[in-house]
């Protein structure tokens, strides 16, 4: 099975590239930066990853505004080195992992409903290459890992929201975990901290803000909405706040996929699916599909169970309003219910949950929190089952 063995958030200062190429890494101005990555590389050597998924942004090297994807995934055997307007760096082309790329593409599109642009060719540039230089130094014959580029638009508004990027990270982790072959994956999310690149405030950066932001990223990975941030904070950060938020967050989502959801109702479908999976694993039931017609036919029993489930879910939802609802907690509750009464209840729950899941899929607005959906659980649970 695939496994995410590490996640790294790091910068991609473009001048690092020529410094590496010209062997200037030990000059006094650059040594501190490169020295900081020595323990990172030692850590990575212990992790022995096979693949690096690099969540980065292109800087108008291989993507252009003629057609500009919000999320673009590389699905190729190898990736060429791009020319950003300064010439092509003397680096070996980067080996891809077609099998994992194809699996991630299918998982993100089918299971997690991310509408990706799929790329058979990407010429990678400093957003991708600087993190590779810092973490996986190449030799003359090639790179020590295979790599998969995942490009995120952070240069032309409208940008994907930070929340969306966080969810992309969660989906990425799930996609890697469901890969049938053994593969150890490191996910890198790359972007700058505060920096302003134009206007009279060119070169502006605010370390105090950056430290505050990193603290929040660590303590509250499940995000506050843009509207919850103060206007002053945005002003302090400069425009590159967008790169920082949106590029680094996929990596946080990968690291925190078990974090409780900020808005439980929006994730109803995911919760139901996880419950279903957990029950199937716990009970080892393989023929639920064959039992479906019989269960569906037993209307009275179905309604009784439906009320039981609805009641529990109401309780959870109330709990969620007061605090937070963890998918793990709901899963445990339902699993316990199955354990109390025995396998038959679990089978019936599975049948019911299949119906719930289908309805959640059919009716749930995936991308916005609507008033209609915030009352959605009773709608799903009190139907004619």
């Amino acid at each position, binding site marked *: 099975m695939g496994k995410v063995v590490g996640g790294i958030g790091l910068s991609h200062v473009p*001048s690092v590239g020529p410094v590496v190429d010209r062997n200037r890494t030990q000059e006094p101005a*650059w040594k501190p930066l490169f020295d900081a990555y020595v323990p990172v590389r030692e850590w990575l050597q212990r992790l022995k990853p096979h693949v690096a998924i690099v969540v980065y942004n292109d*800087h108008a090297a291989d993507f252009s505004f003629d057609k500009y994807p919000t999320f673009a995934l590389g699905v190729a055997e190898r990736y060429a080195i791009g020319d*950003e307007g300064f010439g092509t760096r003397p680096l070996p082309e980067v080996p891809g992992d077609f099998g994992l790329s194809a699996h991630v593409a299918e998982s993100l599109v089918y299971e997690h409903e991310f509408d990706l642009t799929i790329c058979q060719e990407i010429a990678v540039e400093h957003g991708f290459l600087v993190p590779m230089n810092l973490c996986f130094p190449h030799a003359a014959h090639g790179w020590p890992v295979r790599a998969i580029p995942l490009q995120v638009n952070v240069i032309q508004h409208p940008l994907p929201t930070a929340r969306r990027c966080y969810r992309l990270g969660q989906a990425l982790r799930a996609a890697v975990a469901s890969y049938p072959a053994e593969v150890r994956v490191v996910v890198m999310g790359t972007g700058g901290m505060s920096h302003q*690149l*134009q206007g009279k405030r060119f*070169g502006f950066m605010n370390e105090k803000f950056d430290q505050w932001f990193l603290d929040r990223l660590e303590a509250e990975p499940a995000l506050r909405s843009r509207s919850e941030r103060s*206007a002053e904070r945005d002003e302090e950060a400069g425009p590159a706040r967008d790169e920082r938020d949106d590029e680094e967050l996929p990596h946080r989502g990968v690291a925190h996929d078990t974090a409780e959801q900020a808005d439980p109702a929006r994730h109803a479908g995911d919760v139901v699916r996880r419950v279903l999976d957990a029950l199937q694993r716990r009970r080892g039931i393989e023929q639920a599909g064959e039992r479906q017609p019989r269960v569906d036919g037993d209307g009275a029993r179905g309604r009784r169970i439906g009320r039981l489930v609805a009641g529990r879910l109401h309780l959870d939802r109330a709990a969620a309003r007061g605090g937070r609802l963890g998918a793990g907690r709901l899963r445990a509750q339902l699993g316990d219910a199955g354990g109390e009464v025995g396998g038959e209840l679990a089978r019936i729950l599975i049948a019911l949950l299949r119906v719930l899941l289908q309805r959640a899929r059919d009716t749930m607005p995936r991308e916005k929190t609507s008033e209609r959906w915030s009352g959605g659980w009773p709608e799903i649970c009190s139907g004619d089952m």
Partner: protein
Amino acid sequence: MLRPIPDTSIFDLRLAQRGRRLNKLCAALCSPAERDAFKRDEEAFMSRFGLTDAEKDLIRKRDFQGLIDAGTNIYYLLKIGSATGNGLYKMGAQMRGETYEQFLATRNMRGAV
């Protein structure tokens, strides 16, 4: 939806539309042959991309803030900067109204260029 930030524009679709010709010209500079063509005959190169006279003038004058205001995306602007011998810091110094040396003096690591 997007709040203003001091001393900068935010590159949205309206700015992208305004800068369409300029950004297409810049994108072409990712090819060595096109860079040579630009250096050989800037005027002919600019005409190929249908730039207005005002836009051409901004390039002639190396007016980087003017190019930003005309809708050139900063990451595209870097390509014109490179083709004309103006790296990011030189363009930035001009936008701040400083000399290159004055700008470098504001940095923690002056050699990190």
